[in-house]
């Protein structure tokens, strides 16, 4: 049984259609990376799955429950967590408060969850009371991911987690993603940084011009001759 099923989704902004019927499947426990050239609709797909955009056609199911058109605050309760590409933290709040916001929909004691998140991101525990607005891009990304993990989701959706990060920071982020996955959590990543991301993925899928082109294992995708054409055009 797949965790997330996206079936022929058509979506976009206003009257600008970006996705023209995309299928996608995420299995339990796997890391799936979506790559593709700029403007292919990767972020749009994420936003549509999460209910920030409403699809004009198609269906989305999570754990066999139809979530098409559900609002984000409902989706979050079902066990999906999403880290947007930009503006993914609350800058005027502290690290701890950002994490607490991640578990907003939960009741009860958060201490255990927080300690689990800090095990994954030890750097955060040293900067407990720092306002996230004063932190570097890499640290912010950790906060953002930590925030999403607070919910103990079934599926973590990351939109370009390594964007705008220096290479060594990107490396740390990917390392952390692997560590998160080892705990059994499924992860859906959209990445520009295809090589790094595919290396740690079980499967990859290539999106171009609002359509899914192919799906394969990481190495096979990178070896595929069509990749160059999809990114750089030409015959």
């Amino acid at each position, binding site marked *: 049984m797949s965790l997330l099923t996206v079936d022929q989704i058509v979506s*976009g902004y*206003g*009257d600008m*259609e970006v996705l023209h019927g995309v299928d996608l499947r995420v299995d339990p426990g796997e890391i799936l990376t979506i790559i593709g050239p700029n403007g292919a609709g990767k972020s749009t797909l994420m936003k549509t799955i999460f209910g920030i955009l*409403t699809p*004009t056609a198609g269906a989305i199911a999570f754990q066999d429950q139809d979530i098409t058109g559900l609002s984000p605050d409902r989706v979050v309760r079902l066990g999906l967590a999403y880290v947007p590409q930009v503006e993914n933290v609350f800058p005027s709040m502290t690290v701890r408060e950002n994490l607490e916001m991640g578990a907003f929909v939960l009741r009860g004691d958060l201490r255990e969850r927080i300690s689990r998140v800090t095990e994954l991101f030890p750097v955060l525990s040293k900067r407990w009371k720092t306002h996230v607005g004063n932190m570097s891009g890499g640290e912010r990304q950790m906060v953002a991911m930590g925030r999403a993990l607070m919910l103990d989701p079934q599926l973590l959706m990351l939109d370009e987690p390594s964007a705008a990060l220096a290479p060594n920071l990107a490396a740390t982020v990917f390392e952390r993603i692997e560590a998160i996955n080892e705990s059994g959590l499924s992860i859906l990543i959209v990445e520009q940084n295809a090589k790094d991301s595919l290396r740690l993925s079980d499967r990859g899928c290539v999106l171009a011009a609002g359509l899914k082109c192919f799906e394969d294992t990481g190495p096979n995708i990178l070896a595929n001759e069509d990749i160059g054409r999809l990114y750089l055009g030409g015959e």
Partner: protein
Amino acid sequence: MELFVGIINYLVFFAITAGTYGVLSLGLNLQWGYTGLFNIGVAAFYAVGAYASALVSGPPPDMWDGRLVGGFELPFILGILAAALAAGIIAFLIGIPTLRLRADYLAIATIGIAETIRMVLKNEAWLTNGVWGLQQLPSPFYDAIHRGATGFVQTHPDLSPWLRALVLKAYNWFYLFLVIAALFLLYLFLRRLAQSPWGRVLRAIREDEVVASMSGKNVFAFKLQALVLGAMIMGIGGAFYAHYARFISPTSFEPFYGTFIVWVMLILGGTGNNKGAILGAFVVWGTWAGTDFITGYLPLSPTQEASLRIIVIGILLVSILLVRPQGLLPEMRQRRRTPRTPE
């Protein structure tokens, strides 16, 4: 018949006031309707115009009032010029710190200037005679016309009483003519400006400042021009008010009469449409006057009546925004097509 004459005389009086408000509404339309400048201190420019004109063309200070300056007894037309000039200067000064900022700041600053001006009117007796206001202001050609009318009535004793009553109010007809003429000229003036490239830049600024500035327009300069010109028109409105009422005091420029009712007029009439601005003035002033008749039948004290009528205007404003935000006469006759894809 008597009732009929009463109604006619009332309608003339009504049209003079509504027409004066039409001038204010046109000024606001230039600022808000075309340029998107959120001025909620119309009263400031209205008051400054009224006082400037009164000081320039009013009678000199006498021993009874505490005033020291003003009262130059200059012609009406110079009073109007002074009104426009004074209001324009105030707008210029208020525009400089606020027009580069978000709309909220201009709004707050214009409330501030309106209140500050009202304080000056109350406190600076040497100039404004404080809360007692300026009195015995001249109406242009009043003596000549009034004397003519009374003379005519005296030389024609056979006039029927109702005709006699009409003739005796001849001055109001003359003033109505002045107001309507001014309104008409302003309308032509603004129409020409609105349809000109200058007006186009203003509308572009309203739609998207960044695009206007990308197209090489100095957005700040255009906004300042619109604010100042709009304020000058409001100042002229003040002059027309002063010379008809012949008495002005700070209470005439309270926020409701000075600012808010003008906003309701413009929004009801149609933001961005000069005809709408004028129509709105007449409709809203009509509603205002109409509620006077209705509340008269209710067992209420005079202040309660006034309050109830203002509540009605407030509700009217909110209802238009909810039901028909584009107003009676929308800016463009073309209907906006509905978006093709649902969002």
